[in-house]
């Protein structure tokens, strides 16, 4: 789908008739149907991907078929309604969060304009409260006394194909970023609601390819990109060669090596495409600098977990590789690279799902002697925590002037900020590797940070206009510091961000680079025995 020109979209966002710009829809939301047209939906999952996932033990992805959201007939199973309602009941019994969030909302509207999708599209159903009402109305109708007796009078609504289509549209216009949950007086988290909606939709075979294909790749080849072991190795080797060309330093790295102290896992996107590649070079340089005894794995070659965006069974299955590989290789602990949703899974789900990791040791940096007690049970440390500790203990030789070309700002990922509390470690690192960096406005950073607009598997090109709209609040905050402080680099600790913010900057703020914090670390490191070329643009310099 062609993306509208910048001037067009800029006008449309502000002046187009939408709830965000002041126009109040005349129709009740229950009477507005979801209309699918090219550009407003992500493509359905390919038959073979759904079939593959469904064939895997412990997974349930039924009803693989060719279907098109624009068609009236979505080829749902005959008893789709029973499946959905039973699925909802099961989930109400399994998740207290769902029950509470269905029951407690008072529709105060505090969340309404906190959503980047709402701000960018003005679509009322993108107000978090209304997104949840899409499900809540069905819940009221079929699971509460008031709704059973009073029906529509009590805000109830029967489950119909139209409702299902609406669920599909709006559960894929939510990136589970949790910003609304910060402002809700009851902590109602739309991420939980969206997760449930997506789980329910998968029960009747409604899912998108941009999520299910990477997920099935990850199951089979170990990573979302579908890189087979030799290719994965080639890619990392290639980065090591690049480093040698640029700095004269030979990188010693290894794959699937038993007995290493540390297993390192990062999103495969970091070894696949720019600008993530430079972040991966940063990791390689850092570990070389301190002589860490570590190994990569081709089997557990994915930090990210698109299972998180489908259902908790697939999330668990994909995540299981991390501990399985750590155990097989006999490492002491795991270090994880920069990634947002990966860390949501590692921080809030991994130990519960696939622990206890009693075969690992409480992470202790062999370089500084620091014990990471905050990871005492999971035994997995974030690269920013690890790096900050190295800096604090003076173990890194850093030369900030090597980042003289950079005037940075820092984007908090939704997940690391609001589902982990990792905010100051990357900032501490930035303080020590760049001369110049500034914060974006306070309502757009830390726990109030805005999503890149393309998280939870929505970073696909066919919905580019939607992505540019939902990314607008983030882009706008970046523009603010570009105008005010001549910022030229948007740094972050997330692989999806590195990919999606690049598109977002190219559209809204051309000329602003996107990089991982570890890239800036790599730039600044003064390596032993280096023979460094003139690197005007750090690791990005073409020589």
């Amino acid at each position: 789908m062609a993306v509208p020109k910048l001037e067009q979209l800029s006008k449309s966002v502000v002046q187009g008739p939408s709830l965000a710009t002041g126009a109040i829809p005349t129709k009740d939301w229950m009477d507005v149907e979801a209309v699918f047209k090219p550009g407003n939906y992500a493509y359905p999952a390919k038959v073979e991907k759904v079939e593959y996932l469904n064939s895997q033990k412990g997974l349930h992805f039924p009803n693989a078929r060719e279907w098109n959201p624009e068609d009236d007939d979505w080829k749902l199973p005959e008893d789709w309604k029973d499946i959905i309602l039973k699925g909802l009941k099961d989930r109400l019994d399994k998740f207290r969060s769902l029950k509470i969030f269905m029951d407690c909302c008072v529709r105060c509207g505090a969340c309404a304009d906190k959503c980047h999708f709402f701000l960018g599209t003005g679509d009322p159903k993108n107000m978090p409260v209304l997104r949840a009402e899409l499900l809540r109305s069905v819940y009221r109708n079929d699971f509460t006394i008031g709704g059973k007796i009073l029906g529509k009078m009590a805000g109830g609504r029967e489950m119909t194909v139209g409702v299902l289509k609406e669920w599909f549209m709006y559960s894929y216009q939510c990136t589970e970023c949790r910003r609304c949950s910060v402002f809700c007086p009851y902590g109602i988290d739309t991420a939980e609601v969206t997760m449930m909606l997506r789980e329910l939709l998968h029960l009747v075979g409604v899912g998108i390819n941009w999520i299910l294909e990477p997920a099935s790749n990850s199951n089979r080849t170990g990573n979302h990109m579908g890189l087979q072991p030799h290719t994965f190795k080639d890619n990392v080797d290639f980065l090591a060669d690049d480093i040698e060309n640029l700095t004269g330093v030979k990188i010693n790295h290894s794959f699937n090596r038993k007995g290493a102290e540390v297993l390192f896992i990062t999103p495969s996107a970091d070894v696949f495409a720019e600008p993530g590649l430079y972040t991966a070079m940063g990791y390689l340089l850092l570990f070389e600098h301190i002589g860490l005894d570590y190994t990569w794995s081709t089997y557990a070659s994915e930090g990210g977990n698109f299972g998180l965006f489908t259902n908790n069974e697939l999330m668990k299955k994909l995540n299981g590789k991390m501990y399985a590989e750590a155990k097989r290789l006999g490492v002491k602990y795991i270090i994880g690279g920069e990634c947002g949703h990966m860390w949501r899974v590692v921080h809030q789900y991994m130990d519960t799902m696939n622990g206890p990791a009693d075969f690992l040791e409480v992470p202790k940096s062999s370089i500084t002697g620091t014990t990471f007690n905050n990871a005492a049970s999971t035994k997995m440390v974030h690269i920013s925590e690890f790096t900050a500790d190295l800096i604090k203990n003076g173990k890194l030789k850093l030369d900030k002037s090597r980042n003289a070309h950079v005037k940075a700002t820092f984007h908090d990922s939704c997940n690391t900020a609001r589902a982990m509390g990792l905010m100051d470690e990357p900032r501490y690192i930035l303080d020590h590797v760049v001369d110049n960096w500034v914060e974006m406005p306070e309502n757009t950073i830390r726990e109030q940070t805005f999503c890149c607009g393309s998280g939870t598997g929505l970073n696909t090109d066919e919905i580019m206009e939607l992505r540019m709209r939902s990314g607008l609040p983030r882009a706008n905050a970046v523009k603010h510091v570009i105008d005010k402080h001549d910022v030229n680099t948007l740094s972050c600790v997330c692989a999806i961000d590195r990919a999606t913010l690049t598109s977002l900057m190219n559209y809204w703020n051309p000329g602003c680079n996107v990089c991982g914090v570890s890239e800036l670390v790599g730039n600044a490191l003064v390596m032993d025995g280096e023979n460094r070329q003139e690197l005007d643009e750090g690791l990005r310099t073409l020589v």
Partner: protein
Amino acid sequence: MKYAFSFLAVIALVLIAGFGSQIPGMQYLFGVVVPYLAIMLFVGGFVYRVMQWAKSPVPFSIPTTCGQGASLDFIKQDKLDCPTKTSEVAARMFLEIFLFRSLFRNTTSELHNGPKITYESSKWLWLFGLLFHYSFLVIVIRHMRLFIDPIPFWLSAIEGVDSMLQIGAPTLYLSSVTLLGGLLLLFGRRLVNRHVRYISLNNDYFPLVLIFAIGLTGILMRYFLRTDIDIINIKNLAMGLVTFSPVIGAKIGAIFYIHLFLVSTLLAYFPFSKLMHMGGVFMSPTRNMANNSRAKRHINPWNDPEIKPHSYAGYEDEFREFMVDAGIPVEKELSAAKDEA
């Protein structure tokens, strides 16, 4: 016009109680049976709902972290917004429940040409909410004087503070004014704020109108229709209700029965409505959990041990040749694997 329905419903309730209670012999129904039923529904329903919530487990540790987490020694933890200890969680919950802290954060956004989005602090909802809830609390506490004899000191003290402006006779309670004011503001906000107007349901207007009517009938009784009621008889009835020996004296005016009937409706409606946020706010997993899921394992009772990752052995079997070619270590060398096959 969803709010119109709420007015109609409340007017109907008023008429039912107003006329019904004047039919000879019906006072017992409106003065004793209905309140008892309402209390039973309230307590039973509230307990039932909380038990229903409690029955569902919290499978994952999902606090929303709103500040820096506990990490390295030199990184300062935000103990209130990213708690790791129970005491810190308790402090976070206390501020949430008693001061509506999340609402205090509220901002309002505006889109300007450019495009440019601005965010400004917006504390109205927080203020209206506090005003209403605390007024309601004070009024509920004040009403305890009907159920306790003699009146304890603390109750008189609260009444004293509540009427400290010494306006009129009987002296005006501040909470009477702030309750109605809070309700009007909350109701007005539902109409004026376009986001909230669009999402509001009957379920949202009805409690506001109902509680407003309760407040209004109470104020009418206390300040304007005092001659129609007999406060001694009301206190006797109230004491009778709590001691399970209710007596209906003569001369309790219709206005009292209307007030009581509306309160009964509120009590009966409470557990089956969004008003259960009163209980739910204590149990919301995103607020009442500690952010320590990496340090301490959270247990999911329905975790399925049968869901295992695609095995390394299966992976190596598929890619062994490539791995050997690329010099990646394998568990089984090519020849050994062939022998097995």
